[in-house]
């Protein structure tokens, strides 16, 4: 935080020059001040800060309206303690935002892009100078893939729908859904978008499912053979 303060202070003199030049209204002055620490880099150097270690997406969170975590994926090393803290802070920040506000919040020098689908908030954390709308559409892309896979997805699907393929007739109280994690892994790697085609992802996930199915069949056929032989 102190680093940001330092930045703000050094740009304030520049900004006051500019304000004078443009003869700006009070309100606009305030807006510009707020945004200057983002704009402080020269334009072509807007990306100068994007060094080797900058990721596009730092982490993905799915939180319910009541603040329960449904899925987390971290593309940056966060310790268990840090993760808990992040989740608590962001839940407090995002869940209290009204519906008419924009889908980006600033948080700890980063930006969190979020969108609410039914009772679930999908959140992805990026850097300040990344393309927010792009991320918003990555979130939508993910939801569409989930939708395609589960058939009209809702939060309950993520809770219940774990063994859908294998034990279709059972209404299981499922786990965090290994499936959603698998689908997320087909969508993003290293915090970057991997596959823009829903159809390709759907095909891959279906292939994986049949692999699991056939493995189970193999196991059961072997066990039944052994059972037979043991009789």
């Amino acid at each position, binding site marked *: 935080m102190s680093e940001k303060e330092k930045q703000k202070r050094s740009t304030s003199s520049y900004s006051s020059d*500019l304000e004078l030049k*443009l003869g700006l*209204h009070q*309100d*606009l002055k305030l*807006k*510009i001040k*707020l*945004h200057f620490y983002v*704009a402080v880099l*020269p*334009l*072509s150097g*807007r990306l100068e800060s994007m060094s*080797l*270690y900058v990721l*596009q997406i730092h982490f993905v969170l799915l939180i319910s309206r009541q603040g329960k*975590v449904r*899925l987390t*994926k*971290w593309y940056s*090393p966060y310790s268990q303690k840090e993760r*808990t803290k992040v989740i608590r802070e962001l839940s407090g920040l995002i869940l209290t935002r009204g519906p*008419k*506000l*924009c*889908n*980006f919040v600033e948080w700890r020098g980063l930006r969190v892009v979020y969108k609410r689908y039914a009772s679930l908030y999908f959140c992805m954390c990026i850097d300040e100078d990344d*393309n*927010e*709308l*792009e991320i*918003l*559409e*990555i979130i*939508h892309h993910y939801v569409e893939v989930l939708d395609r896979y589960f058939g009209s997805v809702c939060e309950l699907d993520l809770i219940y729908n774990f063994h859908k393929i294998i*034990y279709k007739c*059972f209404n*299981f*109280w499922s*786990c*965090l859904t*290994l499936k959603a*994690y698998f689908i997320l*892994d087909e969508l993003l*790697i*290293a915090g*970057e*978008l991997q596959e*823009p*085609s829903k*159809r*390709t992802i759907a095909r*891959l996930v279906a292939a*994986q499912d049949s*692999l*699991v199915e056939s*493995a*189970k069949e193999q*196991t059961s056929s072997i066990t039944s053979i052994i059972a037979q032989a043991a009789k």
Partner: protein
Amino acid sequence: MAMHGMRGLSVFISDIRNCQNKEQERQRIDKELGNVRNRFKNEKGLSPYEKKKYVWKMLYIYMLGYDVDFGHMEAVSLISAPKYPEKQVGYIVTSCLLNENHDFLRLAINTVRNDIIGRNETFQCLALTMVGNIGGREFAESLAPDVQKLLLSSSCRPLVRKKAALCLLRLYRKNPDVVNVDGWADRMAQLLDERDLGVLTSSMSLLVALVSNNHEAYWSCLPKCVKTLERLARNQDIPQEYTYYGIPSPWLQVKTMRALQYFPTIEDPYTRRTLFEVLQRILMGTDVVKNVNKNNASHAVLFEALALVMHLDAEKEMMSQCVSLLGKFIAVREPNIRYLGLENMTRMLMVTDVQEIIKRHQAQIITSLKDPDIRLSF
């Protein structure tokens, strides 16, 4: 036997969901953790299937927010399971619970490497995904050559190659020396000729990282980027599945424009002219539409194009077009576009030529700022 196992898992979960308060939940969790801990201690009695089941429980508990400080060994050991269902759980849970700061993730390097160089494509994918997500420096040193081989191999399917591209990106971020610039300039240029858009998107992310550190070495990639952008902007030959609400792969467009922002100038006049035509097309052709997603996607491309225009220090006319577009956005109802319009306008103020142009829009900016909505939102 299988059903019984699953029932245990589902019973546990319904118990948790039926808890009336945090206290009860804590008690149930502690009981289960103790149970799992004991089972893990009797390692001899655990089949991979059972291990998988307990590892799932562990992950669920972890997701609820409780500390799970044991069982990492079991999760990692599942990675070496011979069968796919167990192996998959091992990889995914390890990716969730561990990260590069956990020392014994290193123990998995050999198994992971075996999966990468092995013939089994599915195992390769699992391994590449995990390394791409949580791999650390040691992974970079041991695995980079193998991952590179997969990326460049023509016998590998696009499925594997796109994961290899992003995995390599991760390894490069951990240790830049693993990508030897001399060899790679040509290879990157080759990769950019790729037809499969999934592989191209991943390769472009890799290019952005490489170019951000050394744009001189990758000059040959510049015209290819422009060509890709042109192909996308004109919707030439883009398979239907890569069209997102009518826009050809917006993410790839954004990524390509980002890569272009790392080259300081464009020498070749022909390339420069082509690029400006494409940018012009994007600037003129983007409207605010009703469909939210189409709107977001087309504006994501537009905002990135604006950034590129500013970077290229384009002719005054184009700049003036940008400013008038931004002026239009500031007046739009949609909060996202309005916010981004304002932010980009602020960035443009840095360019001295533009200040004059912005002054013309001053009145409009001020009226929009007076709108109570914005003050509350931002």
